[in-house]
């Protein structure tokens, strides 16, 4: 069912070649919305759930942004297809486990997806590569306003947008930025950073739920609180914290390079060698090698043009994508071989590493 989505050559997360940035991989913002008076998904009867699903899918499908979008009924998707969509951050694990009457609608370039009957009736998400909080919110705000012209959303003056869980009340907004922080991890500062931002109501998680010891040094950083501040304030506050983290990360990288130049170059050189010659590779190991390749781009050892390839491989080397590409249920061991084959092939086309431009600002 999802084939056209995977083969789409204009998908934001895997095919965007323009807006890549060091440190920040991608930015996501989601809004929780519910319909007035109709029970929330968990308490709705199955008849109510299918009503909500068809009604919302119809209204969403009418919106301009969703022209040529794709709608999927979750109960029609295979386990593997669901996993692929999770790995692309287009649906949540919670949606995968939902009963009958849940769905998702995804726009053409996969920057916008709306889950129907997850924890709330609607979970609207916008996703872009790079650091884009303000522009995403602007686009999202008008999409949301467009939607409320035709749907009666649940709202109260006191509590704001009403949600099943009180942790999402108010704006219903959660902004989440995927950051690549090898410098802070290597210099043992990550724990301190996590503690400091927690005090500001900001949460840090791993790329796919590996906790603070994130594979590939990739972390998701997001606001915890949604009530008592406007959308703009939430986004600014998070944005300011993230800018500080970016500064610390860049400093940590340069400091490490200064103090451990040979060790640093060796790490990247070896990773590149492994990727060109590997025959067996687990997903964790792949993430860590790709993390070093992203650093190589940041330090101009690889051309900037290859950043999007590295970012794409972060997604395409996930277990679901590897299995999906093989078109059959393959055992973990064969998966590790398929992953190695893919990376070896991809890295055979890259130019050799350049070591004499290092130190120029990244």
């Amino acid at each position, binding site marked *: 069912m999802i084939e056209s989505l995977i083969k789409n050559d204009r998908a934001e997360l895997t095919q965007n070649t323009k807006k890549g940035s060091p440190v920040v991989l991608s930015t996501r913002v989601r809004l929780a919305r519910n319909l007035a008076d109709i029970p929330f998904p968990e308490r709705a009867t199955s008849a109510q759930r299918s009503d909500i699903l068809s009604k919302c899918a119809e209204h969403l499908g009418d919106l301009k942004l969703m022209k040529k979008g794709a709608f999927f009924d979750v109960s029609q998707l295979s386990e593997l297809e669901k996993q692929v969509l999770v790995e692309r951050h287009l649906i949540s694990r919670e949606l995968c486990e939902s009963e009958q009457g849940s769905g998702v609608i995804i726009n053409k370039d996969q920057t916008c997806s709306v889950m129907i009957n997850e924890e709330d009736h609607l979970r609207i998400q916008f996703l872009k590569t790079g650091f884009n909080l303000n522009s995403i919110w602007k686009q999202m705000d008008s999409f949301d306003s467009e939607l409320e012209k035709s749907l009666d*959303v649940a709202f*109260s003056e006191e509590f704001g947008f009403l949600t*099943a869980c009180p942790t999402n009340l108010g704006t219903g907004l959660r902004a989440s930025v995927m950051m690549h922080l090898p410098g802070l991890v290597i210099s043992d500062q990550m724990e301190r950073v996590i503690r400091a931002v*927690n005090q500001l109501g900001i949460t840090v998680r791993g790329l796919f739920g590996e906790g603070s010891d994130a594979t590939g040094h990739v972390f998701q950083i997001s606001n915890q*609180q949604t*009530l*008592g501040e406007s959308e703009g304030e939430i986004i600014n506050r998070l944005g300011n914290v993230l800018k500080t983290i970016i500064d610390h990360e860049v400093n940590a990288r340069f400091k490490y390079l200064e103090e451990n130049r040979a060790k640093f170059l060796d790490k990247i050189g070896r990773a590149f060698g492994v990727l060109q010659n590997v025959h067996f590779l687990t997903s964790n190991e792949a993430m860590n090698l790709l993390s070093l390749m992203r650093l190589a781009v940041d330090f101009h050892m690889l051309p900037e043009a290859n950043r999007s390839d590295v970012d794409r491989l972060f997604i395409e080397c996930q277990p679901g994508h590897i299995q999906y590409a093989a078109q059959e249920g393959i055992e973990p061991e064969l998966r590790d071989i398929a992953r190695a084959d893919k990376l070896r092939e991809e890295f055979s086309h890259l130019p050799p590493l350049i070591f004499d431009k290092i130190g120029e600002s990244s």
Partner: protein
Amino acid sequence: MADNLKCSNCNKEATVHLTQIVNNKIHKVDLCESCAQKKGVTDPQGFSLADLLSKATLTHETGDSQLVCSNCGLETADFRSTGRLGCSACFEVFADVVRPALEDMHVGSEHKGKVPEFALTRQNSQAHLHALKVSLARAIAEEAYEDAATFRDQIKAHEVAVAELEATEA
């Protein structure tokens, strides 16, 4: 380890200990292996300590009366055990139960963000129209035909206004 911590959910021996600082307050939660799994603690993507804490604050309050939402049937006990509301009408029924939990959870306890103008205007206008129709029916039943004529004119005027508004929106 003589003094083993108990799971805050089921009283078995706790093996998972979480600490998070929210609004400068330290929150600690101890869980056993199976409760930790159930609550998704081992899956940080789907887990938020705030969710758990909110539930803890909710569960620890006792002695309040049993409320029931007439729209979806949710009872106070349901809310206390799941930490979830059942529908938009629940927020009026359970407002006093929800309010205290919000303080530790959020920056403030009142909404300061966006307001869905279109939906609210439409909902208010539908409520207004409904009230007029009820008044009209009552006036007819009471044979107060002058009043009935007034209500009928108001309903017409309202419907024309709504139609015009919708035309400009489109």
